[in-house]
C-alpha cells in the first residue's frame, strides 16, 4: 500500500485494496418480506438482526484484514519487516479486531472464515509469492558439500525473519485480544477457565504449527535432511577430529581446532532451525543419520589401526569414546532439537557402544585373514574381534567372511602347502584365542582342512616337518617354498599335554566336570582340551593313513641316517607316540630298533672278523631286505623273534679301491614292518659280494640260521677313485659305485666292434669306455638306474659321454685354459660344452637320487597287476562302466586305498583295451568276452 491510499483509508474507511468486501457497505441487504407481513416495516422480523450483523461483520472484516495484510514486497533482506510498523492501528481497527475475534463477529464454526484462518492464509500466500522464490534459489539445485553449512544458515535466517514478520502482527494484534478475552472469561466464569485459556494458547500454537508446516514444505525435504545430516556429520567429524578421505575438505576448515566454538556454532544453527520449525522429527532423523555415519567414520579413522606392538585391544577405548564423546554430543543436540531436556539413558549408551563394537568388529573381521597371517603381532585386533563375537550374529558373520577370505586368498594352487599349513597353525592359535571352546575354529578351519586333505604333499610335509629339528637345522630351510614348515617343527618342541586319545567323554558317567557341548557346536564337534596344534594336524587324516605316511618318511630317514645313534629319530618317535598312541606305532618302533640292532650286529660280526681293528663304523651301507618267501605269518605270538620275520635281507656296503681293509655294515630290517623298499637287483662288485657272503655266513651263525636277503640298491659306500691326475673320494650309493666299478672290470666278452669305434675318437686322456647296454648286461642293472648313475658320474667329472650312450673315464681333466679359450681344441672334442652339460647333469642327478622307499608312482607300477585284477573283476561282474566309476570302486575296495586319480585309471583301462581284455566305447569300458 502506498502512502496515499493509507491516508485515504484512514479518513474513509474503504475496503482493503487487496480485498473485495463481499457485501457493499452502502446497500445492506434487508431481506425479503415474508408473505402476509407489511412490506418494509421497521421491524421486519427476526432476520433483521442477522442481516445487521452480516453488514457489521463485513465492515469489520474489511478493516481488520486491511490492517493485517502483509506488505506486498518481494523478499529482500534489507526491507523485510520494515513495512508493518507503519500502519496506524486506529480505533476502528481495534474495534474490528475485537469484534471479529472475540465479539459477535467471531466466525461461526464451519460457516464463516475466522480472522485467524484468514491471517494464516494471508501469510501462506505471502510466503509463497515473496519468500519462497528466495528459498528456491538456495534449494533448487544440489547443495554442494562446501556450501551446505551456508545454505542452512541462510535459510534459517530468512525463515527467522519472515517468521518474525508473520508473527509480529499476530502476536501484537490478535493474541492480546484473545488473551484479554480469556482473562475476562476467567474472572467471570471459573468453570470455563481452562477452556478459554486453552483457546488462545491453541490459536497461537496452531498458527505457529501452520507456519512451520509452511516453512518445512517450502524446502525439498530430502535435500534438506541430506544437507542437514551432512552438516551435522561434518561437524561431528571436526569435533572428533575424524579424518575423512573424501577429497572435499571441511567447511570452514580453519576453525578446525576450536572445538568448543565449533560445538557452540553447531548448536546455534540447530537452535535456529528448531525455532523456525525445521527441527523436530525431520531434523532428528537427519541427526540420527549423521551420527550413524559419524560413528562409522570415527571407527574407520581412529580405530582401524591395529596396535602391532603393545598387542592391546582398543575396544575399551572405543567404549570410553562412546560414553564420553559421542553420547554428550547426542545429548546436547537432542536437547536443542527436542525442545525438552533430554537425558541419555545408560541403556542407550550401552546400545551405542554395542553398535560401535559391532562396526569395529565387522571392519576387523574383513581383515581377519591379514591378522591371522600376522599372528601373533595382531593379538590386539584378535581381542577386539573376540569382544565383537559377543554381539548377536557375529559368529555367523565371522565364519562366512573368513571362509570367503580363505578361499580367495589361501586355498588356491598358488599357495604352497607349507604356507597353507603355516596359516592353518596360525588359524588354530588365533581362533583359540578368539573362542576357547573351539566351535568357531572347527567351522572356520573346515575348508582349510578339506583342502589340505586334497593336497598330495600335505602328509609328507607335516611328517617331515615333525621329523625336522628346529634347532640344528639352518634357518634357510624354512622358506615359504620349502617342504618343511617351521611352525610345525617348532610346535613339536613344545611340551605335550597328555593326549588322551579317543576317550568318549560323553560316556564317562563319573566325570563331575562334564559340560554339554556349546549349543552352536556341530555334530562332529569334539572338545579339545588342549591347544595342541599337532593334534589338529594329526587329525587331518585318518590315523592309519598318517602312520603309513610316517612309516614311509621315517624309513627314508632311517636309511639315510648318518647318526649311528639315531637320537633325533628316537626322540621324535617318542613324541609322536605320545600323541598318536603307542599301539599304532609299533611298526615305526620296529624300524627304529632294526637300525639300532643292526649297528650292534655289525659291531659284533665285524669285530669277530678283525678283533684288533677299532670298531670304526665309517662306511655304512645300509640296506634292507624283504622277506623273500611269504611263508610265515610275520607276527604270531608263538614266535618270540617276530621282529625278524624269517628271511632277513640286509645289503652290503661296499668300499672300493683298496680292497684290503674295507668293512661291510648291514642294516637288517624286518621287512614286514617296513614300507615297500626299492628292490632293484644288480651285481655288486666282486669284492663286495665276497664280503656279503662272509657277512651272511657270520650272521647265520649268530642268528641261528636266519637268512639274509640283500637289497643292493639301498646301500651307501665310500669310495676312492685313483685316476691318472687325481684321486676322487666320494660317499655314494651302491648302484653308483657298482657302475663306476664296472669301468675297472674287464669286459666280459670280446666287445662288439661297434663299441670299439668309440675308442678311436678318444684322445689319449681317456680311459676305459663302456656303452650303456654293456653296463646293463654286466651289472644286470635296470637301464634307467645305469643311466642315472652315469649321469651322476659325469656330473662328478669322472666320466664323460664321448658318444651317445658311450661313456669313458676321464683320466685327466681337460685343462681349464684350453676349455675356456675357443677354437684352441680343434679336435672337436666338445670339452667346454661337456663341462657345462655335466654341471647341469649333476644337478639333475642330485634331484633324481631315488629314495630308498618306494614312491607312490613307483607303487602304481608295482601294484599294477593287482589293480588290473580288480578292474577286470569289477567289469566282469558289475558290467560296463566309465573310468570315474571304476576309480570310485577301486578306492572303496582296494585294501589300503587307491591313491590315484581318474587319469591313472584311464591309462590302466587303455592298457587292458590294447591287450584285448577290455573293450571301450566312448567313455565306457567293459569286458570283452
Amino acid at each position: 500500500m502506498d502512502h496515499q491510499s493509507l491516508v485515504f483509508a484512514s479518513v474513509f474507511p474503504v475496503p482493503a485494496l487487496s480485498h473485495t468486501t463481499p457485501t457493499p457497505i452502502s446497500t445492506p441487504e434487508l431481506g425479503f418480506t415474508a408473505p402476509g407481513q407489511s412490506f418494509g416495516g421497521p421491524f421486519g422480523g427476526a432476520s433483521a438482526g442477522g442481516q445487521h450483523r452480516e453488514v457489521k461483520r463485513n465492515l469489520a472484516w474489511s478493516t481488520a484484514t486491511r490492517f493485517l495484510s502483509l506488505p506486498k514486497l518481494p523478499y529482500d533482506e534489507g526491507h523485510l519487516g520494515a513495512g508493518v510498523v507503519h500502519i496506524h492501528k486506529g480505533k476502528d481497527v481495534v474495534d474490528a479486531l475485537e469484534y471479529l475475534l472475540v465479539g459477535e463477529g467471531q466466525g461461526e464454526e464451519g460457516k464463516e472464515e475466522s480472522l485467524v484462518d484468514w491471517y494464516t492464509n494471508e501469510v501462506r500466500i505471502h510466503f509463497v509469492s515473496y519468500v519462497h522464490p528466495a528459498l528456491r534459489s538456495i534449494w533448487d539445485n544440489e547443495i554442494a558439500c562446501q556450501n551446505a553449512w551456508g545454505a542452512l544458515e541462510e535459510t534459517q535466517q530468512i525463515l527467522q525473519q519472515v517468521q518474525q514478520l508473520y508473527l509480529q502482527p499476530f502476536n501484537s494484534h490478535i493474541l492480546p485480544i484473545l488473551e484479554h478475552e480469556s482473562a475476562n472469561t476467567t474472572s467471570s466464569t471459573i468453570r470455563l477457565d481452562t477452556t478459554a485459556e486453552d483457546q488462545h494458547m491453541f490459536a497461537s500454537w496452531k498458527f505457529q504449527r501452520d507456519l512451520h508446516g509452511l516453512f518445512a514444505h517450502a524446502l525439498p525435504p530430502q535435500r534438506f535432511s541430506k544437507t542437514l545430516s551432512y552438516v551435522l556429520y561434518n561437524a561431528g567429524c571436526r569435533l572428533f577430529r575424524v579424518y575423512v578421505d573424501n577429497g572435499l575438505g571441511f567447511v570452514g576448515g580453519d576453525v578446525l581446532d576450536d572445538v568448543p566454538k565449533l560445538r557452540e556454532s553447531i548448536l546455534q544453527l540447530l537452535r535456529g532451525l528448531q525455532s523456525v520449525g525445521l527441527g523436530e522429527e525431520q531434523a532428528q532423523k537427519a541427526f540420527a543419520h549423521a551420527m550413524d555415519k559419524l560413528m562409522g567414520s570415527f571407527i574407520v579413522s581412529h580405530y582401524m589401526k591395529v596396535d602391532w606392538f603393545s598387542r592391546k585391544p582398543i575396544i575399551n577405548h572405543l567404549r570410553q569414546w562412546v560414553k564420553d564423546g559421542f553420547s554428550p554430543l547426542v545429548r546436547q543436540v537432542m536437547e536443542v532439537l527436542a525442545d525438552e531436556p533430554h537425558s541419555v539413558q545408560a541403556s542407550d549408551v550401552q546400545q551405542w557402544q554395542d553398535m560401535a563394537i559391532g562396526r569395529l568388529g565387522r571392519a576387523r573381521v574383513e581383515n581377519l585373514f591379514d591378522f591371522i597371517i600376522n599372528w601373533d603381532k595382531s593379538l590386539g585386533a584378535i581381542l577386539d574381534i573376540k569382544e565383537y563375537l559377543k554381539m548377536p550374529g557375529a559368529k555367523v558373520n565371522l565364519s562366512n567372511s573368513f571362509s570367503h577370505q580363505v578361499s580367495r586368498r589361501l586355498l588356491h594352487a598358488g599357495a604352497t602347502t607349507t604356507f597353507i599349513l603355516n596359516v592353518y597353525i596360525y588359524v588354530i592359535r588365533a581362533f583359540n584365542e578368539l573362542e576357547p571352546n573351539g566351535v568357531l575354529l572347527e567351522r572356520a578351519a573346515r575348508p582349510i582342512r578339506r583342502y589340505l586333505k586334497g593336497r598330495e604333499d600335505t602328509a609328507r610335509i607335516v611328517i617331515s616337518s615333525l621329523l625336522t629339528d628346529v634347532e640344528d637345522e639352518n634357518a634357510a630351510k624354512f622358506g615359504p617354498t620349502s617342504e618343511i614348515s617351521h611352525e610345525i617343527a617348532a610346535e613339536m618342541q613344545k611340551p605335550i599335554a597328555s593326549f588322551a586319545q579317543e576317550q568318549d567323554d560323553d560316556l564317562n558317567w563319573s566325570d563331575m566336570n562334564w559340560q554339554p557341548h556349546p549349543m552352536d557346536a556341530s555334530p562332529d564337534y569334539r572338545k579339545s582340551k588342549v591347544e595342541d596344534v599337532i593334534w589338529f594336524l594329526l587329525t587331518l587324516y585318518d590315523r592309519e593313513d598318517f602312520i603309513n605316511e610316517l612309516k614311509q618318511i621315517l624309513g627314508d630317514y632311517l636309511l639315510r641316517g648318518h647318526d649311528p645313534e639315531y637320537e633325533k629319530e628316537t626322540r621324535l618317535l617318542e613324541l609322536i607316540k605320545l600323541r598318536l598312541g603307542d599301539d599304532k606305532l609299533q611298526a615305526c618302533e620296529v624300524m627304529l630298533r632294526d637300525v639300532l640292532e643292526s649297528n650292534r650286529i655289525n659291531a659284533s660280526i665285524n669285530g669277530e672278523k678283525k678283533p684288533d681293528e677299532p670298531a670304526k663304523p665309517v662306511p655304512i651301507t645300509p640296506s634292507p631286505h624283504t622277506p623273500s618267501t611269504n611263508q610265515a605269518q610275520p607276527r604270531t605270538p608263538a614266535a618270540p623273534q617276530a621282529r625278524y620275520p624269517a628271511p632277513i635281507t640286509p645289503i652290503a656296503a661296499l668300499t672300493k679301491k683298496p680292497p684290503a681293509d674295507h668293512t661291510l655294515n648291514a642294516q637288517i630290517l624286518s621287512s614286514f614292518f617296513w614300507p615297500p623298499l626299492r628292490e632293484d637287483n644288480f651285481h655288486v662288485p666282486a669284492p663286495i659280494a665276497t664280503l656279503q657272503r662272509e657277512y651272511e655266513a657270520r650272521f647265520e651263525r649268530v642268528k641261528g640260521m636266519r637268512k639274509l636277503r640283500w637289497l643292493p640298491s639301498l646301500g651307501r659306500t665310500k669310495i676312492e677313485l685313483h685316476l691318472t691326475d687325481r684321486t676322487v673320494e666320494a660317499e655314494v650309493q651302491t648302484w653308483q659305485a657298482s657302475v663306476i666299478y664296472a669301468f675297472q672290470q674287464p669286459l666280459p666278452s670280446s666287445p662288439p666292434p661297434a663299441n670299439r669305434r668309440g675308442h678311436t675318437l678318444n684322445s689319449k686322456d681317456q680311459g676305459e669306455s663302456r656303452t650303456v647296454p654293456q653296463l646293463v648286461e654286466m651289472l644286470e642293472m635296470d637301464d634307467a638306474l645305469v643311466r642315472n648313475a652315469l649321469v651322476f658320474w659325469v656330473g662328478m667329472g669322472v666320466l664323460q659321454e664321448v658318444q651317445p650312450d658311450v661313456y669313458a673315464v676321464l683320466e685327466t681333466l681337460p685343462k681349464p685354459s684350453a676349455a675356456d679359450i675357443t677354437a684352441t681344441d680343434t679336435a672337436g672334442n666338445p670339452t667346454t660344452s661337456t663341462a657345462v652339460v655335466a654341471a647341469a647333469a649333476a644337478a639333475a642327478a642330485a634331484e633324481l637320487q631315488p629314495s630308498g622307499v618306494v614312491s607312490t608312482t613307483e607303487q602304481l607300477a608295482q601294484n599294477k597287476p593287482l589293480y588290473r585284477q580288480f578292474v577286470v573283476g569289477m567289469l566282469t561282474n558289475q558290467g560296463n562302466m566309465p573310468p570315474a566309476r571304476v576309480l570310485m570302486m577301486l578306492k572303496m575296495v582296494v585294501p589300503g586305498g587307491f591313491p590315484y586319480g581318474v587319469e591313472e585309471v584311464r591309462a590302466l583301462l587303455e592298457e587292458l583295451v590294447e591287450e584285448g581284455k577290455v573293450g571301450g566305447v566312448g567313455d565306457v569300458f567293459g569286458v570283452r568276452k
Partner: protein
Amino acid sequence: MDSLSNPPSMSNADMATTEAKISPPSRSASSNANVTKRLQTELMNLMMSSTPGISAFPNDENLLKWTATIDGPADTPYAGLSFKLSFDFPTTYPLTPPTVLFKTPIYHPNIDFSGRICLDILKDKWSAIYNVQSVLLSLQSLLGEPNNSSPLNGQAAELWDSDPAEYQRLVLARHRDDEETEL
C-alpha cells in the same frame, strides 16, 4: 571237485558251532566291521589267485552284496555259457552262509526257476572256512555234477540221465545272455 561240493563235514561243522558260541550276540557295529574286513580279505585273495572261470566283485562300498560270474565248465552242457550270481552276505557272515542266487536263468536239476540253489554247503553244511571262492568253485562243479537225488527241477534231473540232447537244448533255450552291449 568232490571235496568242494561235498566237503568232509565233521571238522567244519565243529568249527562253525564253536565260533557261533563265541560270537557275542549284540554289537552289530563291530561285527559289521568284522564282516567287512573278512570280505575285503576274501576279495583280495580272489583277485590275487584269479582262478579262471570264476570271478566276483562287490556291488558298492558296503561290500555286503556282490555279483559273481561263473563260466560253464567245459565238457558239460553249460560249456561256453556264463552265469551271473548274486551274493548277499548277512552281518553274521562267515558264521552263517551268504544267500546265493543265480541271476542268469539256468536249467539245472538243483536250481529252480527263480535261481535258488539247493546245495548243502549253502545250507546246513555251511562252515566259516568256506569263502566266496570255494562257494563259486562248488557251484561251478555242481553244474557238471548235479545231485540228481534231491532235485529242485525234477524234469531236469530225469533228462540229465535219459536224454542228454534234449537236456542240452533246454539249457540253451533257457539261457539268456546279459543284456549289456558287447564292447
